[in-house]
């Protein structure tokens, strides 16, 4: 006790806020925070004042009003009587569709190219180098425009598919004909493919504003259950193998478990394909993949795959040679060395920069306007913004949505990263 009392009881003086190292950092932080808040309030105040000076209001009421315009690619039902909010959702889904498919293609392609670039085959590795350098050193917008131009200029018009009676009489063939047993037509506008349809479908599930296709849902549930069953079968086979040393034959059981239930469901529902038919102006029926969507997604995938290839290559090269030598010494074949030894270890180097590439690809989908693809930027940030004149609201909303998408991707990928990273115990 006496020791404590010996410490001189220094009374607190104001100057200590600056000169005493115990308080100085707090002082600086408080000052910075105050300045930051002042700056923030100045910005908000300035915005409000300027809006008032221009007699403009700041509200999101326009989202509930009738949109009045049409969109050419709608994943959920939409007419020009729907609201601006619905139009924004259509745009958001189109953005996500392009981003998800783009990320998937880019990943697969990127990993293949990254591995092949390290190939000992001179020609293959050089070809991959050329691909990577060409794609990542040209702005992605140019790739998008180039693919859109190729798709729309190098394809036949719908009219080229038409067969008139005069042509039959003269024995002429039409300028263009459908591919794959008259099921696929590629025109200047898009790629028409058959659509899966069911005769005896289940009613749609109406959950408030969301309407779910229950046929698709049933299909997914059955498929999921089959795959789960397949996993169980494989786990059982593995247990038997570990216990007895003999792996039971599973291929026909696997096939039956995966294929039969889904096939039975499809037959029960009366599954058939609807083929595209040429009508007065366009192909109708089936599914039309618009060239704007294809061009955007393909260009973004090829561009991002070039970056992912470099990331994969760097990840593989980060694994010491000793690992593959050890695997070879154990008699593991080169292909399996890559998939069982090298890639799992490389993943922890690959995943963090991969997140950035996914984020880039997702944000780059906003270049869609260059090829008239109606993404979020095209609906909410394009037509809605223009027709309502709510620039500030639309821009803030759009930035908020892109931010949410990006943060979600980051969170998911970080969780994946935690799962694959080296566990240190």
């Amino acid at each position, binding site marked *: 006790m006496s020791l404590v009392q010996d410490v001189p009881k220094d009374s607190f003086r104001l100057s200590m806020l600056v000169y005493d190292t115990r308080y100085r950092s707090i002082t600086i932080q408080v000052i910075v925070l105050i300045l930051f808040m002042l700056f923030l309030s100045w910005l908000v105040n300035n915005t409000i004042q300027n809006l008032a000076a221009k007699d403009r209001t700041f509200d999101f009421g326009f989202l509930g009003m009738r949109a009045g315009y049409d969109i050419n690619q709608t994943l959920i039902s939409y007419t020009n009587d729907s609201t601006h909010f619905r139009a924004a959702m259509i745009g958001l889904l189109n953005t996500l569709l392009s981003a998800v498919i783009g990320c998937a293609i880019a990943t697969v392609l990127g990993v293949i190219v990254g591995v092949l670039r390290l190939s000992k085959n001179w020609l293959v590795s050089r070809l991959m180098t050329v691909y990577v350098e060409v794609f990542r050193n040209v702005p992605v917008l140019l790739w998008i425009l180039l693919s859109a131009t190729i798709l729309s200029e190098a394809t036949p018009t719908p009219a080229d598919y038409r067969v008139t009676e005069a042509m039959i009489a003269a024995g002429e063939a039409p300028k263009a004909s459908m591919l794959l047993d008259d099921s696929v037509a590629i025109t200047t506008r898009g790629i028409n493919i058959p659509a899966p349809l069911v005769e005896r479908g289940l009613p749609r599930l109406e959950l408030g504003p969301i309407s779910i296709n229950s046929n698709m849902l049933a299909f997914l549930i059955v498929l999921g259950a089959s795959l789960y069953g397949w996993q169980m079968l494989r786990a059982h086979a593995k247990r038997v193998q570990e216990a007895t040393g003999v792996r039971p034959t599973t291929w026909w059981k696997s096939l039956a478990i995966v294929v039969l239930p889904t096939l039975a469901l499809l037959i029960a529902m009366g599954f058939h394909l609807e083929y595209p038919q040429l009508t007065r102006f366009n192909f109708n029926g089936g599914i039309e993949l618009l060239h704007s969507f294809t061009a955007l997604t393909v260009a973004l995938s090829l561009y991002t795959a070039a970056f992912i290839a470099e990331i994969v290559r760097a990840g593989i090269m980060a694994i010491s040679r000793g690992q593959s030598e050890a695997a070879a010494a154990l008699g593991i074949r080169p292909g399996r060395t890559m998939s069982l030894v090298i890639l799992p270890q490389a993943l922890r180097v690959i995943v963090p920069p991969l997140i950035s590439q996914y984020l880039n690809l997702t944000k780059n989908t906003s270049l869609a*306007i260059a090829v008239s693809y109606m993404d979020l930027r095209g609906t909410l940030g394009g037509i809605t*913004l223009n027709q309502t004149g709510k620039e500030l609201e639309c821009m803030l909303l759009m930035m908020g949505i892109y931010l949410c998408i990006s943060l979600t991707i980051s969170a998911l990928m970080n969780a994946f990263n935690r799962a694959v990273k080296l566990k240190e115990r």
Partner: protein
Amino acid sequence: MKKSVFLGTLSAAALVAGIAGAATLDDVRSRGELICGVNVGLTGFGAPDANGNYQGFDVAICKAVAAAVLGDASKVKYVPTTGETRFTALASGEVDLLVRNSTWTFSRDNDLKFDFVAVNYYDGQGFMVKKDLGVSSAKELDGATVCIQTGTTTELNLADFFKANNMSYTPVTVADDSEGQRQYLAGACDAYTTDASGLAASRATMPDAESHIILPEIISKEPLGPLVRHGDNQWGDIVRWTYFALVAAEEYGVTSANIEEVATSTQNPEVKRLLGLEGDLGAMLGLDKEFSKRAIAAVGNYGEIFEANIGSATPIGLARGLNALWTQGGLQYAPPFR
């Protein structure tokens, strides 16, 4: 991160909003230059010529206002704007005046806070198709793919027209006229729709103009005119009366060629007031007496501008139609100069 993004937006918005001032006339004078928002490129209305100088029916109004305010029709800086960027450019003060074949609508006038000062071209929305498509009426376009410029009134008219006629269509949304033409010519759409005048202008620049036809249906009213920011009435009046001076000049037979001769010989008090020989109308606008005379001398009267840029002698070949003077059965009419 969230905060910084929000901040960035706000600061950008605040900066943009901060520029817009009230007294546009003073700004233009002190700058010595009029900043005019025009079309990125619509032949006949507003497009750069072979030497890169902007020419056209809309551009002539920019020149007339510059001549009236600054005394020199060449003191104009042209800012090319698309259908999407034009209104932001005007609202933010980036341009003093927007003359970009923009349709006068209720919401643009009131909600977007602009003032349409006049209608320099009475137009309507039409369709253009390739001749070999065998379509002779817009009502036959059921199921067609239609190219449409985004950010325009035509986008909404198109939806209304097809709905009213119980037809379906697929829209292909393009950013501007040149992209629309490219897509249309590449066959990405069956029909291209925009203002009929714009269709005529586009068709004139196509390599095979004869193989495209403009369908007879006009599906909307598109009064196109110059516009300014709401709230600066003096500037709005200057643009309005400069335009009326051009219309009045045609009515009284004053052209850029005979203006000096008319000024010395005329006995008509209205013409004298128009040319600033009598009274002091210019002072009421904050300009000098001869503002309208300079405007007419620089670009000619309304009829001259029309014929030189989009009239029947040009490749665009538009007839006066609704845009004839009221004395000729049209709608162009200037209130009295007194």
